[in-house]
């Protein structure tokens, strides 16, 4: 195990399951033997606000917060939110980008504009960007609410952790009746 600390920043919109995803990720990291810290702000998560979760792991983690410009992976659940947190990414870091667009209130009521061409801007700033069509894959898996599991599948391909651990933790965290579609979603994301 390296003594170096890795930083993953999750960014999304309340209701997308960002917090459950960071829960699964942190649990997998602990099972893999790392020291892990996870920090996020609840509260507004159910009310359509912007949501971030900081996950840090290594042999010994002190600060639960990722320093500006030091995230190794920016794990983005929505276009605008991923773009918003791009300054958190370190030089040479990677982005995992879900191509979904969710309108913030000022745009929905017509008083502001959703920025155009975000995916291209992110790819230009960070060549190591992996784009995933999470919604489409979730629909293939049989439930549009499994976007977060699709994305975890895609993330799992970027981290050197046993697949078995992911499957065990998902089975533990997801209610049984939703498990088959979540396992399908994870596989689709991992192979995407």
């Amino acid at each position, binding site marked *: 195990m390296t003594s170096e600390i890795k930083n993953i920043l999750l960014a999304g919109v309340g209701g997308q399951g960002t917090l459950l995803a960071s829960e699964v990720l942190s649990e997998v990291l602990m099972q893999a033997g790392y020291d892990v810290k996870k920090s996020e702000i609840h509260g507004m998560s159910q009310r359509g606000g912007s949501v971030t979760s900081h996950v840090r792991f290594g042999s010994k983690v002190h600060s639960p917060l990722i320093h500006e410009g030091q995230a190794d992976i920016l794990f983005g659940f929505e276009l605008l939110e991923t773009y918003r947190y791009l*300054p958190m990414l370190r030089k040479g870091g990677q982005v995992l980008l879900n191509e979904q667009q969710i309108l913030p*209130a000022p745009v929905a009521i*017509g008083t502001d504009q959703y920025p155009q061409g975000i995916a291209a801007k992110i790819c230009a700033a960070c060549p190591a960007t992996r784009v995933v069509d999470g919604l489409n894959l979730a629909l293939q898996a049989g439930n549009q609410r499994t976007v977060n599991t699709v994305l975890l599948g895609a993330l799992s391909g970027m981290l050197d952790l046993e697949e078995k651990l992911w499957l065990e933790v998902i089975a533990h965290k997801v209610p049984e009746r939703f498990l088959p579609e979540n396992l399908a979603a994870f596989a689709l994301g991992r192979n995407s």
Partner: protein
Amino acid sequence: MQRSLMSGNEAIARGAFEAGVRVASAYPGTPSTEILENAVNYPSIDASWSPNEKVALEVGIGASFGGARALVAMKHVGVNVAADPLFTLSYIGVRGGLVLVCADDPEMHSSQNEQDSRNYAKFAKVPMFEPSDSEEARAFTRLAFELSEEFDTPVMLRTNTRISHGKSIVNLQEPVSGLPEPSLVRDPAKMVMLPANARRRHPLVEERIRRLEEWAGEQPFNRVEEGTGEVGVICSGIAYQYARQLLPEAHILKLGMVYPLPKQLIRDFAGRCKTLYVIEELDPFIEEQIRAMGIEVKGKEIIPLCGELTPGRLETALKGDEQAAPFIHPEELPGRPPNMCAGCSHRGVFYTLKKLGAFVTGDIGCYTLGFLPPLSAMDTCVCMGAGISNATGLTKVLPPEEKQKVVGVMGDSTFLHTGINSLIDMVYNGGCGTVMILDNRITAMTGRQENPTSGQTLSGIESPPIDLQALCRVIGVEHVQIIDPYDLGQTTAVLKQEMARPELSVIIARRPCMLDRRKGPEPTPPLRVVEENCSSCKACLKLGCPAIEWQQDGAKPLARINSSQCSGCQLCLQLCKFEAIEVCDDE
């Protein structure tokens, strides 16, 4: 030994369980709420929501009088409400250990101020622990109960949002056994705090703090971590984690207890460091006490007084200029403010209040989001319960034509928290305002906790739902009406009539919280826009409903309803004059 990834709040509940706590009481408040939500899962703990923090603490004190260990939890501003019993409890002490957990919210992620609760420990003369991760949250909670009984004192444990909501690894321990069974014991000299008794107790309190200070100097939770340089840092809580990360070479005196401070330990440590920093979030609480000892330190002249301390802010403070981010946005991005949910029962009320030009003395809850555009219908918000009493004061001084515009608004949980006292005052002193209670049968803002209107307790036991209408009547309000906030016609008519009425009246807007399907009605089918009929008038957008989106990419701009978000509340349908919104009755 079992390891588990836990939030600070889960770990505090675990620590309470391990310490043999019998009673846990609290009023919800971010970031403290999950402490009780986890405590209730331990069958050995009787965990309950009180209507406010003062009551919660008094319930805990009662359990302690009986010889049981009691945990009481609240957010920082809750301690303001509970301060009265807290200060006298400090004189009384405890029989069963009593720990008051208070969760601060630097940066005000979900709060109206960022007061630093460490000041309460000094003010009330009680010891205070401050954990720096979840493992310490568990261990300090457990230890706090032993300390409470050993030193005959309530003990405070302070967290912040990062500790309470952050997760890290916890080593679970076996619970204690062999605690004495609760029983009645009379001890009036200690438990009846009238002047003669209190005068005898006060010197004991001062002596207790002196003994605690001595004791704390020898405990492993106040420890020196040797570094290699000449720089020393004194810190505690989350600030310790940031200091450790940014100054790996520094000598660190890490304090697990922030009051009373281990003065001798600090003197010895300071003597060994050429440059000494005190790194703390918010107030110069530790810094001022160290300066008062005659020791020179660097602190708040470089470290921010306001907001959260983050690794970035601390680095800027220590090293001078800010590090440039590798990426800077060339454009301004639209914000993503929180919003009331689609189908929220508060939306129609605020739409109507705005339309009628009401001056809304508001309060704290999900409905505070009525402040945001496009509803923009809240004019004041101070603290829980103030919505009604602010209206009383305001109508005392306004000219008659302006008096009628004043409407005091609050939710059911806020009304039962302290709003009821405000209403009693209004009735008693002949106030003439209009009061609205937004009764969604739940404490929604903090994550839908049960309250006395819900018909259920925290542990899922049924209890009689309080009858708010009868309650208002019995206080002496003559005009009390219940309306359905989904019915805009009725809401407008009743509000208009009651605002015009020269006497006091109460309107109860009743609809269960959209997210609480347990007690709520069956889901209703979503709506859709009939594109040919939409005249692009934007009337429906005035609701600020997250399910309605303004589309500008077609032949004409028009509203679109996102069927996966729409709850079918039909407010927009009532606003549309062109029959351009209809119910999807496909299936």
